[in-house]
């Protein structure tokens, strides 16, 4: 792995309760070129909240299952404070639904803790590059909600999010469909005769439409999805 990035976004907030995983992430970040003074560690939600309140954060690696609460709360808060902060969820044992919820709360991507170091590193790098990680499950979930909000007989007529999804363009829907089938961004780009970056920007658009800045809206969204 060659590290070609010249400017690394700093500081990086690492929210993780387990010491071993913290040191693992420390190692991975060092491999990416980060030095110790750029890293801020938080053991729980309260600490993390304090940190984001006191200083701006460029990149946050957030665990969802924290001893004193859910990481999603932190993601929402951080997203509220800073529109452009990069947030990656590094989850140990979470359902895919809660990962989806974290995407909706404003996370840029997620990776499972159990993955090999190389894969975790790859995810971080992809985030740093400004990529928009998406996986088949998330794509399917979004597509499902579009179809339910488009079907007139369903009871979710008044759902705001449904209206948000309605605003997805045909191209965006097409991309989601391909993602749901497991195609990589490059494959999608090849299939649609566009550049990889165009695909990524489309996905980022979809995410922006998905993401909700206000906490109340997030809660209602989460409820309607059956996550909370």
């Amino acid at each position, binding site marked *: 792995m060659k590290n070609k990035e010249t400017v690394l976004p700093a500081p990086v907030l690492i929210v993780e309760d387990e010491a071993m995983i913290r040191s693992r992430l420390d190692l991975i970040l060092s491999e990416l070129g980060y030095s110790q003074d750029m890293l801020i560690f938080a053991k729980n939600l309260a600490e993390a909240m304090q940190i984001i309140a006191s200083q701006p954060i460029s990149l946050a690696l957030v665990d969802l299952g924290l001893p004193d609460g859910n990481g999603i709360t932190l993601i929402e808060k951080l997203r509220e404070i800073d529109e452009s902060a990069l947030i990656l969820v590094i989850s140990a044992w979470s359902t895919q639904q809660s990962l989806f919820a974290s995407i909706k709360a404003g996370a840029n991507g997620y990776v499972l803790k159990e993955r090999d170091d*190389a*894969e975790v590193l*790859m995810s971080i790098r992809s985030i740093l590059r400004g990529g928009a990680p998406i996986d088949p499950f998330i794509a399917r979930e979004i597509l499902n909600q579009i179809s339910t909000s488009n079907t007139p007989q369903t009871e979710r007529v008044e759902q705001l999010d449904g209206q948000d999804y309605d605003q997805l363009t045909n191209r965006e829907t097409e991309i989601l469909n391909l993602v749901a089938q497991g195609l990589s961004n490059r494959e999608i780009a090849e299939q649609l005769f566009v550049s990889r970056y165009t695909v990524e920007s489309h996905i980022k658009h979809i995410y922006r439409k998905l993401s909700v800045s206000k906490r109340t809206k997030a809660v209602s969204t989460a409820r309607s999805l059956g996550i909370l």
Partner: protein
Amino acid sequence: MRNGWLNIFVTLCLCVLSFASSAQTNFAVSPTCKVNVDKISAVKTSSIDVVPKTGWVEVKNPDVWTERWPHYDGGVWYHFNWHWSCKDSDELKQPLAFSVEGMSSAGAVFFNRNLLWKDKHLVEPLSKSWNTPRFWILPVESLKQKNNDIWVYVVGNSYESPGLGNLEFSDITTAYDKQQKRLWSKRALFQVNLVISTTLGLVCFVIWFFRRNETTFLWFSISCLFWVLFIWNVINREVFPYPNSLWVMKTNLTYFVLYNVCFCIYLLRFVKTKFAELEKTLFLVAAVCIVTILFIPSLMVNIVFAVIFLLCIALFIASFCFVIYRAYKTKRRDFILLAVCLSVILIVMLYDISILFDGHINDHQPLSPYTSPVITFFIVIILATRLDKNIKKIQRFNSELEQRVSFVTSNLSSSLYARHQLELENVRLQERIHLAHDLHDGLGASLVRSMILVDQSSSTMSNQQFLSILKLLRDDLRQIIDSGSLTNNKTPDNPVLWIAPVRHRFSQIMDELDIEATWSIPEAWEIQPTALQCLTLIRVLEESLTNIVKHSQARHIDVKMYYPSTTHLVMIIQDDGIGFNVECVLNHGMGIGMRSMKMRLEKIGAELNIESEKGCTKIIASLRFGEGESTE
């Protein structure tokens, strides 16, 4: 109604006694003029057409001839000889009127040999004029100063107190007023009685008809029926529909007996008592009475009828006493009310009788007919209180019912909730069992294999080897979790979606590493593998791709899945990497992952073939359906 027996008493008294008022011979017809009856005489006659010359006897008015001629049935002529006179030789300016209270049972009236009025039937079946007052006007022109004659022909039977009622002279206005009074007390009152009884009887009958167990109402309506039949006789002017007067009397008394019995039973039922034996006896006695009444010869009618009549009265008084006793015992309001009613009847009856026997009874108005509407009113009150009580009971019951229903409903909902909880629990349990099963078959088997591998390893294993064993276990676990949480242990809808998560994950990695991949996956299942087969195949794919990405340095990967035949599924993973020694990997513990996969595939009835040379390595998993499925 209740005072019925009293009415009959009065009626009979009227029959027997009312004609016995004191004889009067002077009648004032105006302030100054008067009529003097000089002589009243009577004679037996065989028909209205014959006026005997001899046999005349002087009589008084009113007259009942059985005192004189016992057991005489037939016609009698009454002759009134009279004159009028005025003080100070005044002239009679206004016409006279004379009235007849009644005659038993039919007759005709002549004035100075001219017929004034005649009953319809003067031979059996006779008309019945005994309870019909009449009056006639005599114009001044038709009057003589002296020797005016009024002839009254009366035909009757010895058993019905035959004779002529009061015959009186007066001025027209007085006569008219008196007539109105008499019509009211002798006819209208009974008609009112009739209407009220009929109405109440019908109402009670209908109530009973819809509520068959309320026999009180039935008995009351039956007693009403007999009372109506009985009263009908009082105002009926003709014998019809009975063959003759005797039968009228017999049936009438029969009705009276039946009425009394029914009324008694009604009273007993009303005070909530039922003496089966007593009632039987009562019916028996009534039957005997009725038979006696129907078959008695006319000679003995009077005495027998009197006895039966007294029996009825005794029965009434006995039941009255019992009602009072019950009312006193139970202190129930409606019983007390009933007792009060009956007492009022009894008192009025006694009053009437005392007046009758007192002698001053000329046109005395008996009070008893008036009790009927009053008693009716009391009955209505009693019925109303009963109804009110019942409705209150129903309302109470309703509220109780409501409470019970809500209680039962809450019970039901809680039990339903418990059942729902139980079902949920069951589903959860099922899922757990599934998960445990999957863990046992997947992770557990891997674990056991890894243990055997470590155990049988001839040399000490390197960290790297341990790590790969652990990673294998980890990937197994992840697949079990994903397949479990994602699809609820069902195979995915189509192969593309099934492969998608793995494809996505590795596409990202391969993108990163600049490895080109081609995927060729069928759009739909031709034969759907079981969940375990899916899991195993996806693990093989995952493991192969992991190896390729890690070790092969390949630039191009080709993943292909197809159905060579309808019972055969093949998955080929091909790369252009450096290749490896197949022998070595499979047999000498080099690639723990691939060996594990091979064993696993064999377990689900599939086989794994690996061909490898530099630039072309093929991993072929081939699953034949209908063979290995049962070996699980």
